């Protein structure tokens, strides 16, 4: 396996290179920034590039390598497994994500699995990625899905014949809040009266 290491921190760069070489992994390039990474990858032809995304241009480096060197799998080396960082790396084209909290042993496993085309990551990262896919999935047809959970609640109460004041009391919110919800519901559904909105949503459910 041929690996490139991209990090602005010398102790990580040289230390990881030493450690991986002792594990029989061929470290073909080390680089401290995006330009050097692109150059090193073009010359060294690694299977995998391990990119420290804590560097100021870390995410940009992931994106540049993923788009310009599609045959190279990019592993993002992050500080911690925060949702924002993991998603940013996935969107930039990273094939895998590891944090500095992990061991050299697990990094070695991630490198091998990534070369085989598998995603080797923590259960936490899996959860983050699945949540993100669900957020981005096209929503099923039907008007009610365009309403927020609270708006659907309000429509259901309108359908049950409650007045705005009664809805406010039931949901323990201000009357003005309910009026805002109703206004938004009418706008989203393109109807003029609250009873029309309730009928429309009830119709969709049948």
């Amino acid at each position: 396996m041929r690996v490139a290491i991209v990090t602005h921190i010398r102790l990580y760069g040289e230390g990881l290179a030493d450690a991986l070489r002792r594990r029989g992994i061929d470290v073909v390039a080390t680089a401290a920034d995006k330009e050097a990474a692109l150059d090193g990858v073009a010359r060294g032809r690694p299977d995998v590039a391990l990119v420290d995304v804590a560097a100021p241009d870390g995410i940009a480096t992931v994106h540049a390598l993923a788009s310009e060197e599609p045959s190279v799998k990019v592993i993002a080396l992050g500080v911690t497994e925060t949702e924002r960082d993991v998603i940013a790396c996935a969107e930039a084209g990273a094939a895998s994500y590891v944090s500095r909290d992990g061991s050299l042993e697990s990094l070695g496993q991630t490198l091998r699995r990534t070369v085989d085309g598998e995603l080797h990551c923590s259960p936490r990262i899996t959860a983050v990625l699945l949540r993100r896919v669900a957020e981005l999935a096209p929503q099923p047809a039907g008007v009610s899905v365009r309403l927020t959970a609270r708006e659907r609640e309000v429509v259901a109460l309108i359908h049950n014949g409650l007045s705005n004041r009664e809805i406010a009391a039931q949901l323990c919110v201000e009357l003005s809040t309910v009026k805002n919800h109703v206004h938004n519901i009418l706008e989203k559904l393109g109807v003029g009266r609250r009873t029309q909105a309730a009928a429309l949503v009830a119709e969709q459910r049948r």
Partner: protein
Amino acid sequence: MIEHALPKPAIRVVLVALAGLLRDIVRQRLELEPDIALVGEVRDSRFLQGVLVNTWADVVLCTVTGRNAIDAYPALFADHPKLKLVTVTDDGRGYLCEPLGDVSPQSLVETIRRAAMR
């Protein structure tokens, strides 16, 4: 007259580092050096006192950042006046210090040797 060269005693190092890649990298590197013995590892300098009593360490190598990482040291030096501290963080506050971004594994080893000789 025959002189027997006494074996040179190894520099006894305690590592302060969070679990993770950096700790693994530093540990592996120190294990390659014949004149350095890694005699203890803790994740927080608050746990050093107990380790130092039993290990007779010459040098503490601290890779943990932040104020808390350093606050424990004045008290430790009072109890262990010969102890040397090497940090790879920017907040060494007067101790032997090299910023993490610039230190190489080799220079880290050399810094430990220099610190032990002081």
